[in-house]
């Protein structure tokens, strides 16, 4: 009787020892992965901050105004350039500014065509 109990106990000990070991092993592995992931997250966050700051630097109104004045024929929107959606139909130019049928005058269609090539 006692022998059976003892052998069960020894077996139990072996099984639980193996279980504990394997658990520990997988936890160690998990921990390593977490640390790695945390480091990656931290790095990504730093990168995002850097990119945010860089975006803010590149898109600052002062720079955009200078570039627009230099390269574009644009001006701040005047009050009479605002059109309500209801009046949009009445404001359309009589002749379309480009003829969609002939692709030569439509800059976007030309770009698409070049992409296809």
């Amino acid at each position, binding site marked *: 009787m006692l022998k059976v109990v003892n052998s069960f106990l020894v077996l139990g000990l072996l099984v639980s020892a193996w279980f504990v070991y394997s658990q520990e092993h997988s936890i160690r592995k998990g921990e390593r992965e977490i640390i790695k992931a945390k480091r990656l997250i*931290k790095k990504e*966050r*730093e990168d995002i*901050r*850097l990119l*945010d*700051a*860089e*975006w*803010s*630097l590149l*898109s*600052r*109104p*002062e720079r955009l*105004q200078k570039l627009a004045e230099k390269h574009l024929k644009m*001006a*701040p*929107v*005047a*009050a*009479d350039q*605002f059109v*309500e959606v209801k009046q949009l139909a009445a404001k359309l130019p009589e002749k379309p500014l480009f003829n969609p049928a002939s692709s030569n005058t439509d800059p976007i269609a030309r770009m698409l065509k070049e992409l296809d090539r």
Partner: protein
Amino acid sequence: MSDQQKWSDGRIKGQNRLRLVLMGFTLCFMVITGRLVQLSIVNGMFKVEQKQASHESRLPRPDIVDRNGVVLASDLKVASLYANPSKIIDIDEAIELITSVFPSLDVAVLRKRLSNRKKKFVWLKREISPAQRDALYDLGVPGIYFRNETVRVYPNGRLAAHVLGYVDVDSRGLAGIEKYLDDQGALYTASLADPARQAALPAQLALDSRVEFAMSDEIAKAVEHFKAKAGAGIVMNVHTGEVVSMVSLPDFDPAYPKEAQNKRAINRITTGVYELGSVIKAVTFAMAFEAGVMNLKSRYDARAPLVIGRAKIHDFHAQRRILTVPEVFLHSSNIGTARMALDVGLEGHQDFLRKAGMFDKLKAELPGAAAPILPRKWGKLTTVTAAFGHGFAIQPLQGARVIVALMNGGILLPPTFLKRGREAAEGLGTRLVSKDTSDKMRYLFRLNATEGTARKADGLAMGYRLGGKTGTAEKVVNGRYSKDHRLNTFVGAFPMEDPQYVILLMLDEPKAVPGTFGYATSGWNAVPTAGKVVARIAPLLGIMPKLSDADRAKLAKKHMKKAEVH
């Protein structure tokens, strides 16, 4: 007693002893197990996140963003390059590789630094960009290392410098919102910056960086054109008390805080106090309406200068007749306004100004708020001069705040530089004047823009239904009011049928220039500048222009003229 009995007694004794030992062991194991459970599970549950010891002495700071999330200030990790000369194998190769990434480095200096084999540490270049670091890292030069440092950057440069403030080398906020954040507690500030926290939020300002730039650009142009000493402006949301834009020129670059030490670069909106002059007349009008001593049909005698004791009060644009209330406003009559204040009485006048918060130091988030300069004794003459904005000096922010109350239906709100929703603003304010008084003030403001001294602003910001009051205050120079040193102000709101924003604009000592016919009063400089600002910012703030056919014709003519010039 038989042998049999003796034996069984011994056996029972032995069994009992065995049980005792067993119980002892069980108890021991239970204690150990219990302790294990306590240590690993209970404590573990509450101590999941243990703070890692930071290798940086510098506390992190949160980003500062504008109301649309545009980054205005941020902490950036930058690498600095250093070398350990004792570990460098081939100096010539090292120099060649380093200068391939940094062509600006002086080869001779570099060689001298690296040749000292006894040294273990020499700086080569501070604050290099991540791209440069990666390039150098890929070259794999032995004996070259990086050290990570954190620096505070302000990607928008000078924009909103007076609101943002700046930090010192140890990353402590010394001015502006940066200081405000530190005053909330360093740990609070650091917790805002901790990206691991779910609630980690940047410090969000009420400021709109596009509006800020538009106003700053126009004021800078005006300061240059009118040869003014300085210029300042503020735009406030009338429903929330948020400061959407605050400009004070000359300003400084937060990256070079030394510039901020210049006395001329003070923040004129909150750390300077000024006699705002005629724009304060709006407050006197509201007070007289509110006290019930006046309605829009009342008349005031402005035939002769008002004599108080030995002093004589004159009108700048003297009409020498009896004026109606709108006429007093349009001609900015000192005599008429003074009579209103006298009708309300000395006590009533002081009570109203106190209620409007003009006698107290106004503290918003920005540090260094200035206290008002008030007359020591309040007599009849004090009331008369205070009625048209002389004899007491307040922060321009205080002035703008009162105008906000006069425009939004009568609620005086605490101004804020941080983003605040309309719901959050509800309940914060106190009633200063009635809705009826506010409506009358709106009428007078709009009338002044269509027929009075603010016509130029309305012409430049056509369609945005601007209204306002001008002020030309003579500055005190050597203890006397000087005719040549003026502080010109415009305060207004738009759109007048349901005001959303209040704008206050100041030019310090603008001069008469070609095109102003020798005049240097507010209507010739501060007013058109404000008009230009509103024409630029109103579309950004979502105000839809409304134009009559006559307006459209005028605008079309203007476009034609511009096209001809080009």
